[in-house]
């Protein structure tokens, strides 16, 4: 075998285990649940193989699913906006700060390393009836018995913001960091105020980072079921909770397949639109 041929084959040998794994453990299973969503659940015994539109019919026409889907998208959107409002100034500060580089890096990365479930449950210690806020309010005599602050839509959004904010900060940081500070200085020297130069130079240039952060927050937020389970009441279910319930509690796998495909289609089309206009590289930049 010639050196050249070997050179050509080598990367494929190196790639094949990873590609094989992704194919067998993700791509084929995804196709499989498309097929599965056309099967039927039987009350006893195994699911009925075949081509039935029942699951899709209820997924698409049942107002209950639309109600929950709308609620899910609403919660994800609010979360994303709050993350952007909180995250942008913080990322801007980190980029432009002249302080200790190590500390700033830590501020960027540390939140990622703190476990999701811990961050979520930590709010129970803060807002619960014997949590920090209630204890404080009671000790200064403002209230006489604990007020109920947990287990509603607000705490679900709070928990999601707390979970997703680091993604936003990191992505905005990456794009702000790539902007030449001289541009802003040039604008200022041409007579613009700092605020004007920020609005007209820096902000537009950092939009790709904001978009990448926004997409991540939205998609991750809309796909969660743990946060509503821990911090929400029964009314605060999101779409992924329905998937979890269909698959794990009700063992209705055909319906669960249809519901998860629906979720994938909705969120996937967002990713696709994003990809069409901005490309994937901005997203992976933040993760790398």
């Amino acid at each position, binding site marked *: 075998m010639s050196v050249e041929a070997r050179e050509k084959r080598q990367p494929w040998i190196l790639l094949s285990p990873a590609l094989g794994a992704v194919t067998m453990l993700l791509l084929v299973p995804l196709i499989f649940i498309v097929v599965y969503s056309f099967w039927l659940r039987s009350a*006893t015994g195994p699911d009925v193989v075949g081509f039935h539109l029942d699951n899709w019919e209820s997924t698409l026409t049942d107002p209950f699913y639309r109600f929950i889907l709308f609620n899910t998208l609403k919660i994800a959107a609010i979360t994303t906006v709050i993350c952007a409002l909180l995250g942008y100034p913080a990322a801007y500060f980190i980029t432009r700060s002249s302080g200790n580089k190590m500390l700033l890096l830590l501020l960027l990365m540390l939140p990622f390393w703190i476990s999701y479930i811990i961050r979520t449950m930590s709010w129970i210690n803060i807002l619960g009836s014997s949590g920090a806020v209630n204890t404080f309010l009671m000790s200064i005599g403002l209230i006489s018995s604990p007020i109920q602050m947990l287990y509603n839509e607000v705490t679900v959004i709070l928990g999601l913001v707390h979970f997703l904010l680091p993604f936003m900060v990191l992505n905005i940081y990456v794009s702000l960091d790539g902007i030449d500070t001289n541009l802003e200085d040039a604008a200022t020297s041409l007579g613009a105020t700092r605020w004007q130069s920020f609005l007209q130079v820096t902000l537009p240039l950092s939009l790709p980072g904001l978009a990448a952060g926004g997409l991540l927050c939205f998609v991750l937020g809309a796909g969660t079921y743990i946060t509503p389970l821990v911090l929400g009441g029964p009314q605060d279910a999101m779409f992924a909770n329905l998937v979890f319930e269909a698959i794990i509690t009700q063992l209705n796998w055909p319906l669960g397949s249809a519901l998860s495909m629906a979720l994938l289609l909705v969120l996937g089309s967002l990713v696709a639109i994003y990809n069409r206009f901005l490309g994937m590289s901005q997203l992976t930049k933040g993760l790398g």
Partner: protein
Amino acid sequence: MDNTKRYERLLERYRNGDLDRRRFLGLLGAAGLAYGVQTPFARMALAQEVQQVRFDGWGGVVSEAFRRYAFDPYTEETGITVVDGTFSGGDEYLAQVRSSQEGEYNIAHLSGVFDYARYVNFELDVELNIDNIPNMSLVMDALTNAFRSITPDHLSAVPYNYGTTGLAYNRAHISDEEIREKGASILIDPAYEGKIGGWSDWRTRLWYAALQTDQSPNDIQDMDAAWDAIRSHRDLALKYWGSGAELMSLLAEEEIYVTEGWSGRIAALQEQGHDIGYYDPPNSFGWQECLFVIKGSPVEACEELLNFMLEPETSIAVAEGQNYPPALDGTKVDLGDKIPTLPAYDPSGTLEALTFADPEYWNGNEAEWSETFSRVQRGF
């Protein structure tokens, strides 16, 4: 060693007083060591000799009573470890069992005859050899007959205890007179908005909705009215609780003043000194629990454990620990001083005073009602 012999030896030590309750307490630590050795995935070892039996129950004080008075002494004598797991609802547990491999789950503390019927419908039952469980003769016939009506030719479970889901209330805020006057409707009384609780179980919710709308729980005519009652309760409730431990902590910490509750857990709260009242309204939700052996389990080892657990000494100790009356017939066995004082206790041995869920009625409507409830729960 022959199973029967092993059992007899244990019984002897037990009767001689070699194994008293304090000793059981000491065994708690030993059991920790014993099952620490087993790794989470050592299930394959089951194939040859039975080394462990998995038991799933309701957690909290109930699990503690089982472990202390039944499992530890059993392990001490037979060398068979009892690994115990907990679940917070029967539906969720059944789903887990159905999606598991055979033999993964062995014995379950199931609630009600309807639950027994569901497991039988999914062909998850086994055929127990009652000759290996001589203590079955001490059990109330009324309890056993209920299971026999589902499986006339065999039994896959032994009755173990019974109780009710009645009204639990904080006596500092709600008087005994008020609860008797309002009955189940107190759970939809706007006066207690934000201080009401309830179990997130569709059966219990619907049962109480029937009582609130003056219908028979085993024959609800006006379903819409019942669902509306559930909606009112949902909007007034602080939250649904998901486990007995949560029920107890909500009441103990005065986060809620009134909820329906499991008789044994409320008795446990009273024992701890909390001023919580318990009242069974007319047609209160009664249930009889069984120890169900699931298909694929080492049946002989399970029979041995079940017989051991039905032994009056064990049964009474467990009952006093978990605060639910045992399945043993009070007319055949001396149940001691405490058990007759437990809520829901029936001295007649017939249990005619309690209303149970009709298995056919509830299982027949399960698919539709559980689905509707999951929507109502979401504010739909």
